[in-house]
């Protein structure tokens, strides 16, 4: 036994990697707590989504949503220029970043130039994607998450397990334990008590923060407006209370007109949580004016590429960029529901993560993700902007074995010469009927020699055994018999 040290006991920091998808999936499947938490949450979310679209012609609305996003992407470069010009005219300073590191550097320098030590954050998946909190902490700047779910996950030294509901993997008892452990409140099962405690803890931090950092749901080119969707009010606090607001977003989040926003907002809230509307829709078109009394004195917008312009090059992959980050695809995914969000080891889990992460991280690390799907098609059916997710999963599978266009980083990483040769052989057989028939008939004759173990296939199934007679031969026999009977009947006729 080791000697107990008298230092403070710390939790092991859990880390997940897409490279370890299979091991992580195995662990998650064996964890009844994780499975119960996700099953319960996803069942509720699916029902709520369905009910919330009750009054709508959903197909027409989805068509409009898809069409607005396609129009924005068709004009992407000019809309970004227009967004930049209108933001600047409104007094918002615009920065561009090639990748996450550059974006982190821009934000860190903005903080340092203002002597900022404390940053309060609203929910932003792109900031998770570029590990902004860690980068700021390395520079001695504390970044605190203010969305309740993100706050809990940060207290527990974890990453979000869902893009809309970051703490969905935790249940009430676990959260009570985390809050007790990390903030010193009494253990309780009362959600109102825990929420009130978090409110009090975070209000202090809003007042003390030097900089507020948020994401963006829609950036409107026409008016230079940043739209934020939320229920808690932490987003409004983050973008209003500190003297500086920095918004960070991927370049694909731009929409052309203000009138494009209401249909996307209607789709987003219903698809995400089954809400007909969120508590707050916050539209920011500039810093505090001289005659105004509150709001940040500076607003910055950081536009991050980080692989998005590469996705943009390809007609098929482009559809990935339509995403409005509602999470409906993961809520409806039978794989996500069983393995949970952490298993994917990426910022974006579930089906959208499986088609986005390979572009952001390369297929070397993410080659298993496009296969984390049964291709049941639910993700494509519920997507509010009609991204053909199953088709894109198949495309990325092809890319990973070197059968695609080769324009995804790491394309061909899964290519095996043996497998490729086997498929080539199969292709030849299947296009030569004579050889095929001879082969299948041989397989029937020597069926006793079929191995009873066939790799992973027979882990959970019995090995297939070819029939003694092929279907083809059976049909032939049947036809011959019928022909004979017909002939006999013909002869009997007077």
């Amino acid at each position: 036994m080791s000697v107990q040290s008298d230092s403070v006991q710390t939790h092991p920091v859990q880390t997940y990697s897409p490279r370890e998808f299979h091991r992580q999936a195995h662990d998650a499947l064996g964890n009844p707590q994780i499975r119960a938490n996700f099953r319960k949450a996803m069942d509720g979310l699916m029902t709520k989504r369905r009910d919330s679209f009750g009054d709508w012609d959903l197909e027409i609305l989805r068509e409009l949503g898809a069409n607005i996003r396609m129009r924005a992407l068709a004009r992407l470069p000019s809309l970004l220029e227009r967004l930049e010009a209108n933001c600047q005219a409104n007094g918002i300073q615009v920065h561009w970043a090639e990748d996450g590191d550059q974006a982190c550097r821009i934000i860190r320098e903005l903080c340092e130039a203002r002597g900022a030590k404390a940053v309060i954050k609203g929910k932003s998946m792109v900031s998770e994607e570029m590990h902004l909190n860690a980068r700021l902490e390395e520079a001695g700047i504390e970044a605190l998450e203010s969305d309740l779910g993100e706050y809990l996950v940060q207290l527990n030294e974890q990453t979000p397990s869902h893009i809309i509901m970051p703490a969905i993997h935790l249940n009430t008892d676990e959260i009570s334990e985390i809050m007790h452990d990390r903030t010193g409140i009494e253990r309780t099962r009362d959600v109102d008590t825990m929420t009130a405690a978090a409110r009090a803890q975070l209000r202090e931090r809003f007042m003390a923060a030097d900089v507020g950092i948020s994401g963006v749901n829609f950036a409107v080119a026409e008016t230079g407006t940043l739209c934020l969707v939320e229920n808690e009010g932490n987003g409004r606090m983050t973008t209003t209370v500190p003297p500086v607001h920095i918004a960070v977003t991927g370049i694909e989040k731009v929409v052309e007109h203000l009138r494009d926003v209401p249909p996307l907002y209607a789709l987003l809230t219903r698809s995400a949580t089954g809400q007909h509307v969120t508590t707050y829709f916050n539209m920011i078109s500039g810093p505090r004016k001289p005659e105004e009394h509150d709001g940040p004195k500076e607003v910055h917008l950081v536009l991050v590429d980080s692989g998005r312009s590469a996705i943009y090059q390809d007609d098929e992959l482009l559809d990935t960029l339509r995403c409005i980050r509602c999470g409906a695809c993961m809520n409806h995914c039978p794989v996500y529901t069983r393995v949970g969000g952490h298993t994917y080891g990426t910022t974006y889990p579930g089906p959208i993560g499986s088609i986005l992460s390979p572009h952001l991280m390369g297929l070397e690390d993410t080659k298993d993700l496009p296969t984390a799907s049964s291709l049941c098609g639910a993700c494509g059916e519920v997507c509010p902007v009609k991204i053909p997710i199953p088709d894109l999963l198949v495309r990325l599978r092809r890319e990973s074995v070197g059968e695609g266009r080769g324009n995804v980083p790491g394309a061909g990483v899964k290519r095996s010469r043996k497998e490729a040769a086997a498929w080539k052989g199969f292709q030849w057989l299947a296009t030569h009927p004579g050889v095929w028939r001879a082969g299948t008939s041989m397989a029937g004759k020597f069926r006793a020699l079929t191995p009873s173990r066939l790799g992973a296939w027979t882990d959970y199934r019995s090995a297939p055994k070819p029939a003694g007679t092929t279907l083809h031969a059976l049909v032939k026999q049947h036809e011959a018999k019928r022909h004979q009977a017909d002939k006999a009947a013909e002869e009997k006729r007077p």
Partner: protein
Amino acid sequence: MSARDAILKRLYERADGPLAVPESDFAVVTRRGWSHEERLARFERWITSVHGEVIHVAAHDWTTALAGVLTAKGVRRLALGREHPVAAEARQALADVAVELVDADRDIEAWQQEQFERVDAGLTSTRGGIAETGSLWLWPTPDEPRLLSLVPPIHIAVLDADTLEDTFFDVVERHGWASGMPTNALLVSGPSKTADIEQTLAYGVHGPRELVVLVRHAGGAAGTDA
């Protein structure tokens, strides 16, 4: 080349060539054809479904209802503007009521701590509302700043019944938002809430715990002005 120019160059010189630009038909999100009563009923149904309170009042007598709300909720310190008729009328009417009026038209730096810790409720006007979602349309001003509807634990909003539109799209289009956005435009649909602890709904996580909407009816007694 700057990051900006490099990104834009890649986007403009797209490998698979220019993309088709689809037309958009917005009919699905506009003009529901509801009557005044239907609009009101929908607004009330939706905003109360997320814990908002609705009180119908006659326009000429709305401050009586306001005083009643303040008493019922035990509000001792009410933050409000000065110039907007809603604020001006409230100030006049509440002069004799035992509620301390707190000026909201001050630089936040001068009273942040006070606003966060010693104000019981904030009173704001609204520019309109949305029947389809039960939402209030607020454009904060120097008179009624952004935090007035967010920081105090109770938000009391005054809505004129005839300013309701069918949908968010209708508000944006019919009121010409695109030709002049304020620094901050807001839709508020209920008090602050979260479901981040095991999907259990809790109110008042960062913003107000309660939202009270005083719906003013122009033609006299509440609900009879149609």
